[in-house]
């Protein structure tokens, strides 16, 4: 078991490095307007050259990358081109906001997906199943940024029961924090629930047709006990291992949702970096999101393997 974890962790490091290279190259091939963005359009050629020399942008790309990576490993994400503030502390301030949003959204998604998926499987090929499956198709087709817009329209502009945006730290005013987080979490969570619902349904269907459920029934166990204690519990294991990958997808959605609700998280930092052509900011924010997603995927992979010994072999043969 320890060996398995060690192997996965060892494989994770090259993945992280490769991902950082992809991001670094993608962002640094931007046609050289970082200097222009930082200095204004009237900047002279000399000023631009001086800026690029100072920021190290005139060196070969691989030197820039190694230099950057070396610093990042030590927690130094460089300084913003725009306001010269160190990026690292900024990331630390913003990460909890994004994590809170993603976790709340994931809870919303599971809250919808688990019961509905289980009900659909239980009533396999009957109207309830068709209805729920169709609902999943509908939910999966709603753009999360449109849902966010509609929620603002209804709850903030019409009913005036929730704020349209902004952020208050959880520690300052938990109630206000929750009232500001609920619409962003619903926008991300409801749309993500569509896929999770399908996974739960498939997982539950497989369990319901298994021998031990038949045995439980044959023993005369009450239906409710069979479903909740035997079937759901066993269906949740594959569901969680597959479903947690959705957490990664959901995490990507924070960029657009944070922008709409004016949440000062990592996602909105990506956009700030793009609009200002502020490479260090953009690179750091994108890296954090990618690392979180990759880490979640890796952990899910390990947990999945530990829970299901069969997966060790099937994945190993890839």
């Amino acid at each position, binding site marked *: 078991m320890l060996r398995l974890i060690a192997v996965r962790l060892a494989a994770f490091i090259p*993945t992280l490095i*490769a*991902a950082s290279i*992809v*991001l670094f190259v*993608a*962002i640094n*091939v*931007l*046609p050289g307007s970082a200097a222009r963005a930082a200095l204004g359009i009237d900047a002279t050629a000399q000023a631009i050259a001086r800026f690029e020399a100072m920021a190290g942008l005139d060196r070969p790309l691989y030197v820039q990358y190694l230099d950057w990576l070396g610093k990042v490993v030590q927690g130094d994400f460089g300084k913003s081109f725009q306001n010269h503030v160190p990026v690292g502390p900024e990331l630390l301030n913003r990460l909890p906001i994004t994590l809170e949003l993603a976790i709340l959204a994931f809870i919303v998604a599971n809250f919808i997906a688990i019961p509905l998926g289980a009900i659909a499987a239980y009533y396999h*090929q009957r109207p309830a199943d*068709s209805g729920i*499956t*169709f609902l999943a*198709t*509908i939910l*999966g*087709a*709603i*753009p999360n*940024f*449109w849902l966010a*817009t*509609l929620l*603002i*329209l209804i709850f903030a*502009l019409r009913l005036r029961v929730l704020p349209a945006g902004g952020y208050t730290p959880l520690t300052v005013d938990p109630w206000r924090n929750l009232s500001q987080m609920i619409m962003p979490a619903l926008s991300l969570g409801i749309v993500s629930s569509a896929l999770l619902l*399908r*996974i739960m*349904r*498939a*997982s539950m*269907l*497989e369990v319901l047709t298994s021998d031990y459920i038949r045995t439980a029934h044959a023993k005369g166990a009450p239906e409710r006990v069979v479903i909740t204690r035997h079937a759901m519990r066993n269906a949740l294991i594959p569901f969680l291992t597959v479903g947690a990958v959705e957490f*990664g*997808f959901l*995490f*990507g*959605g924070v*960029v*657009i949702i944070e*922008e*709409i609700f004016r949440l000062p998280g990592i996602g909105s930092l*990506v*956009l700030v970096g*793009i609009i200002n052509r502020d490479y260090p900011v*953009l690179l750091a924010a*994108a890296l954090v*999101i*990618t690392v979180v*997603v*990759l880490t979640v*995927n890796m952990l899910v992979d390990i947990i999945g393997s530990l829970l299901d010994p069969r997966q060790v072999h*099937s*994945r190993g*043969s*890839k």
Partner: protein
Amino acid sequence: MSDLATSGTAAEGFSSRLSWRRHGLLGIGAILVSLVLLAALFADFIAPYSPYELNVVNMLQAPSWAHWLGTDELGRDVLSRTLHAARISVEVALVAVTIGLVGGTIVGIISAYFGGIVDLVLMRLMELLFSFPAILLAIILMASLGTNMLNAMIAIGIIFIPGFSRLARAATQAVLRQEYVEAARTIGMSDLRILGREILPNVSTPLLIEAAVAFAYAVLLESALSFLGLGAQPPEPSWGNMLNTGRGFMAQAPWLGIVPGMAMFLCVLGFNLLGDGLRDYLDPHLKD
């Protein structure tokens, strides 16, 4: 490879529906897709007004007989803009899916056909691309390529390559095990001819189904990029940028927040239903 093979069985369970339902949903999907395609092709003839024509007197007018879906903050007809925006969505999605389909098929087939180290390297690369959140990758690619429609097509297309490559690889591996490929080899057919004559026609069905679903996702990504100001640029109408400007005026003119999103939703729903329906219809493994 075995996890690719088993992932199909999970899908098998939930796609088993009654046949009338299956065809019904496929039908709804086909109708929605046709409507979007008609709007995209004939927007110039169907749209009652020009999508660009400013009319300050008519600013933010509620839906009426003259303007079925109301007017926007510059007095432009929302219906006309929504219809024209379908064109951008369809164009971007069509090119992006083609890039993903062609790129992914080439990578997948090469990977499966040559196997070994080629397979390992290509699939690792695909896995890496796949693990990035799609929207983040699209945003970064757009930022580095520059914001215009062609770049949006390329950025979204690149995102689709891993998905298609996995499918093409799995399907090619399945075909390679068939006797007719063995037979083609023994009669001395060249690798290239085997690929073209025996393998491509046999892997086209799963790829076609995936293309319909990818099309829906491409529409969504294009809208998201335009919403963030990284895709279609004003005054060019796109559902994404219409929604983004519209939400600033939602208190007075709620239709500006509803109409473009509804168009996106119906388009995505249509392609998803079409993809699901085609999968049930064409893929013998998934039939009851």
